[in-house]
């Protein structure tokens, strides 16, 4: 358990923390209505965040920057509408529900990716 915690806090997980930071920044900018930050972070997070998390969950090993960027983009185009369908049938599509579900699903996928990466590295060593 300790080694997992120290692994998540290590440099190897810097990309995960960046996404998490972006998610939190988006949450704060929506809540505090900081329009410019919300515009930029909202765009980046919606178009890359969920896709990146899913891509990292599927591919534990390091991939090239271009491949990662392209698939993150592509998978976000796919994941975000699916989240939208889910909201359409349940809570409705509103700022709060959209924000929480996109951020939460990205975090869940990221957590899965960290766990997978940790076990993969553990196995290797």
């Amino acid at each position: 358990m300790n080694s997992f915690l120290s692994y998540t806090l290590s440099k190897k997980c810097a990309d995960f923390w960046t996404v998490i930071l972006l998610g939190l920044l988006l949450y704060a900018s929506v809540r505090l209505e900081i329009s410019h930050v919300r515009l930029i972070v909202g765009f980046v997070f919606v178009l890359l965040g969920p896709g990146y998390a899913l891509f990292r969950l599927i591919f534990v090993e390091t991939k090239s920057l271009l491949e990662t960027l392209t698939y993150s983009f592509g998978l976000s185009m796919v994941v975000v509408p699916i989240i939208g369908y889910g909201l359409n049938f349940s809570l409705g599509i509103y700022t709060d529900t959209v924000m929480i579900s996109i951020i939460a699903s990205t975090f869940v996928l990221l957590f899965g990716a960290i766990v997978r990466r940790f076990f993969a590295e553990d196995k290797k060593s």
Partner: protein
Amino acid sequence: MQRTKKVNNCRSLIGIVFILIGGCAVRLIPYIAFRGNFLGDLDPYRYLRAIGRILEQGRIPALDTAVAPIGTSATFAVNHGYYLLMSQLALLTNAELVPLLGLSPIVFFIFFGLSLYIFAYYSSECESVALMTILLVSFMPGWWGLVYYLSSNPLSENVGIALFPLILAALVCFLNCKDRRYLMLSGFMLGASFAIHPATFVWASILTLLFFLTYFYSEKSKVSFFVSLAYIAMSLFLTITPFFATMHLSDIRGFTEAASYLTSLKEQYYVLSISQLIGELGVIQIFFATLGLLILKDQSKKRGILALAGLVFMSLLMLVSSFEILRKSLENVPASGLFILSHRMVPYLLQFVYFFASLAIIKYSSLFGRIGVRKIFVLFVAFMVGVSSFATISNSYNFALKFQVDNYNDLFKWINVNTQENEVIIANLMDLNVWIRSIVERPTVFSFSYEDLISKDMANRILLYAAVYTFQYNHSLTLDLLIKYQVKYVVVVPEYHFIDPLHGVLMSGVHSKNDISTYITKLQDRNYLTLAYSNPLSSHFIFRVDTHT
């Protein structure tokens, strides 16, 4: 060795950035011309209202999920995934819808450039080929190729076109390295593309099917059968989802009937002739693409098989729509738009043609032997692309001119100032009805937009326009219809486009200056119409309806 690879990667990255910045600049021209206030074309306004309704209601409105016949562009109108993506983006960024939609094609163009690069790279295993492909696609498309990934023309096609090469790229990657995770990615994106842009789904599915048939044939393994079964199951699961999003099944029926009715009136769709298609793709590019095919044949590269299948399949589709007998027989078949609206296929075919052209340019340049000469040849081609891109830039500018919604600014201003929000307005140009509804937010009675195609009394609504704008119907019928639909204002512009149900034809054309003054005088003879606004410069007129007389 590793350092050389890193330097090459870095060079490719810089190349991609420069090419995509250039491509974005070309696509920004219409957005700048519209000053971010308007959207080009008519379809984007349909999307605008659909997304607007999601933002208002928090749910997908009861939209069509019907596979409509060709009568309208409605075959391509099942885009819940796109509405959901854009509405969630709008909610989280809090951006205004028109500028957001206007700029979205630029963002999707970047995604498209990256996807195509990945596809071309996997299919050729050569960075230069991939770079040349995106260079050609960025600067060389003709009119229709450009329209579907052009700024200010936000369409679900923007996303579909970008997803298409990525779905195929993942399959090529699976073929190259036998990593099933790529297969999973491809299936996932394919299934979801149905919700975003069904045409992409259908065309990519057919190519995927061809891929699996070839794969079975070459591998002859039971495992590959189960792998493909899992792939199909996953993509089907995602395909079914959009159907549950529409709760009102009666609307689906109504929509299909309406689209069939419109089809029965007159052929309304655009088809490219062979010569136009050659013009779209470019003679030199077709020449190089043919040479590229020879390279593939010589080297019998397995990884290029999907690009080849794509080229052959999309070319065949184009040919189907070019032959009138085939086109006519398909016309009323549900979803036939996916197979006969050839102008919408151009951007898909273009990717494969330019890939093969790039393959030829790069591979044949190696025949020059000396690296210096080779580099000069490639630079010469790149320079020629740069010079030829003026045609693309001009197309981009012409697009902005073609859809100058602000040509009607005087009308919009008058309506804004002089009418109430709930007063119903009709216009003799169907598109103008849509713009009045979207830009000045006044109700209209009918348009070819999907919301109107599900109205139960569509025939009467169509009749109203014919009764008001032609002189073949008696006044009492016209008056009855004006009262029934509470029409307060009648707009007349020189361009007209509406249906005359009596003769079953689409009335379409432009009144000349002399013609329109006679026409206006005849309309003024009707005692229930009073001229409220006229602009002799633009020949725009608005009549007030007084039903009490």
